[in-house]
């Protein structure tokens, strides 16, 4: 009689497909996962606690390092909460710059997801094509803010830098036009591929109730048929001025999430296109503010749509330059909680594909 035994397999934190320092201990029977226990915290820096000793402006660089793939949106989430608490009026030019920066950043972030996700399922080339496009965005950001990844571009009351006056908007425009072709290229190379479809369709499924019960947001929620996008549900900034759609699918599997992110690339592209066309020709980029920012005592919770879901910021202020307590609702962290449930009964190849489709950024999970 052959004795079989379950095996404990330690995946990560140095595994190439855990997207950073994520670790999951899986109990496997052959290649089938019986139990999965995620271990997080390798990148925990105590951002929320650190923030209690920092002025609001000093917290901005910390938001860069949470979701480092979409630092612009992290910046905005913080300054938006503070501005709401203070009831500030933001100059129009700054709002346009913010929207352009955020949506370009969403494209860059989804491109990283697209490239690494295909690496996860074994295709090498899409990664390089995606990074080729992302590089163009990073160059635009470097010209705008001086940084490629951690921009700290947003300020309470506006943005730090005005548009570079050497035709930066024209270059954004050109990128946005060219990006149409790149998207088509991605679809030709990847979306139509039989193997990709065979790998993604019907895998990693969950229903709407589960998604809502676990508090999933972003694409992870929209893939189950809920049309919830913070930009539409609780409009912030000037998103109500743009014509864009919230792509929704009902399958709830990897394929649905793949197609949704690809569709969001196109929607973000449309928003940037409109924002560049409507861009005001003059005006301030910063509201009039005292040197030291002291929001009134009180509390505020605002949220924005990050590439990973609803990114919320809660601030409890005592009227001092530092917050009494600040909390970030990090979508990667919330979305990740579903993982152990999804992994049971899947094999190792599917495990990697499912983890990738949740689209986590460990800087944000661990904060």
């Amino acid at each position, binding site marked *: 009689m052959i004795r079989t035994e379950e095996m404990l397999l330690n995946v990560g934190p140095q595994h*190439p*497909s855990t997207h950073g320092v994520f670790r999951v201990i899986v109990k496997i029977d052959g*290649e089938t996962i019986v139990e999965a226990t995620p271990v997080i915290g390798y990148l925990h820096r105590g951002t929320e606690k650190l923030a209690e000793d920092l002025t609001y402006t000093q917290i901005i660089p910390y938001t860069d390092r949470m979701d480092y793939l979409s630092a612009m949106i992290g910046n905005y989430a913080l300054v938006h909460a503070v501005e709401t608490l203070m009831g500030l009026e933001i100059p129009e030019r700054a709002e346009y710059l913010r929207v352009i920066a955020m949506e370009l950043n969403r494209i860059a972030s989804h491109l990283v997801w697209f490239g690494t996700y295909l690496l996860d399922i*074994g*295709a*090498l080339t899409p990664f390089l094509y995606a990074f080729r496009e992302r590089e163009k965005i990073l160059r635009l950001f470097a010209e705008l803010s001086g940084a490629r990844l951690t921009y700290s571009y947003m300020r309470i009351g506006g943005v730090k830098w005005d548009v570079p006056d050497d035709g930066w908007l024209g270059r954004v425009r050109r990128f946005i036009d060219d990006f149409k072709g790149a998207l088509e290229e991605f679809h030709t190379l990847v979306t139509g591929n039989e*193997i990709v479809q065979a*790998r993604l369709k019907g895998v990693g499924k969950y229903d709407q109730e589960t998604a809502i019960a676990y508090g999933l947001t972003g694409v992870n929620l929209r893939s189950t048929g809920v049309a919830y996008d913070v930009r539409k549900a609780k409009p912030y900034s000037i998103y109500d001025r743009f014509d864009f759609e919230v792509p929704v699918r009902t399958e709830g599997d990897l394929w649905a999430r793949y197609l949704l992110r690809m569709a969001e690339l196109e929607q973000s592209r449309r928003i940037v296109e409109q924002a560049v066309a409507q861009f005001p020709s003059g005006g301030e980029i910063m509201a009039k503010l005292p040197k030291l920012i002291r929001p009134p005592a009180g509390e505020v919770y605002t949220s924005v749509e990050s590439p990973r879901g609803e990114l919320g910021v809660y601030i409890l202020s005592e009227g001092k330059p530092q917050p009494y307590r600040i909390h970030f609702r990090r979508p990667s962290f919330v979305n990740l909680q579903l993982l152990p449930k999804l992994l049971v009964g899947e094999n190792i*190849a599917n495990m990697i594909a499912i983890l990738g489709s949740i689209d986590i950024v460990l800087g944000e999970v661990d904060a």
Partner: protein
Amino acid sequence: MRDWLYEPLSAERFGWMVLSILILLGVLLFLVTYAIYVQRKLLGWMQSRVGPNRVGPYGLLQTIADVLKLLTKESFVPTHADRPLYLLAPIVAFAPAFVVFAVIPLTDRIAFTDIGIGLLFYIGVASLSTLGVIMGGWASNNKWSLIGAMRAAAMMISYEIPLVLAALGVVMLAGSINLVDIVEAQRGVWNVVPQFVGFVIFLIAALAELNRTPFDLTEAESELIAGYQVEYSGFRFAIFMLGEYVYLFAMGALIAILYFGGWLPPHPALDFIPGIVWLVVKTLFFAYLPFWLQATFPRVRIDQLMTFSWKVLMPLALVNIAFTSLVKTIAGGVS
């Protein structure tokens, strides 16, 4: 050359044998070195990169630098490894890939040995290299390499069968399993035309046999890190890689011989170009095809791979055999 096997062994003959073996080895090593270079260049171009261009003119010495680096690394054996098996595995994986070159005829006159059962020898010996992979995976005493080895075993069983069944169609057409006879039987028309289904099955099964994308499940970097090679480094890792690349050429040569007329030119008018050139061109094409696929496809899942082999390739190969024999019987009846 081929008479050697049937004549008494003298010192002079032995010397010639050793010399020709060394020549074969040298040619293959040279080919492999530049195959890796060309692969990296091609992959680079396909992926909008430039590929190696630092070491030597146009990066031509890159592979040599890489090999030197691997050779000078510490020879490391994990503490809990099964030492004898661990040391033996790279050799077992690598030797068959070289041995099969012995039976591959380069032209109708140049062959290292011309044994009657060439094809059978090739398939039999080539499948031994999987044994090295399984040994390496088991002996490393690492869970990742064990899973890789498990996958290798499963893949060998499911892909060897369609491979052999597909090749049977060619054997039936030629009426021989001698590789020279098989090529000679293609004087009129290359086997790829009457045996197109067989060719497709053979190509797919060969890719799986070679562990190339989309069937690179035993290595599967994003899943198993490097599969059976996880614990191998330096020289032993180089041997594994070398075996893999040489096998790639051996398989390319076999496909050229079985389906594309070996050293025969596409048209008799092109006879002035020596046969060996044709064979090399065809071999290189089929040795590079996997790199092209590697740049295009993602990886299939292990269960999909199994289903595909047993439920699609196997029945198709059997139908191909039945059809070939039917055609052959009818054609034979008429003449």
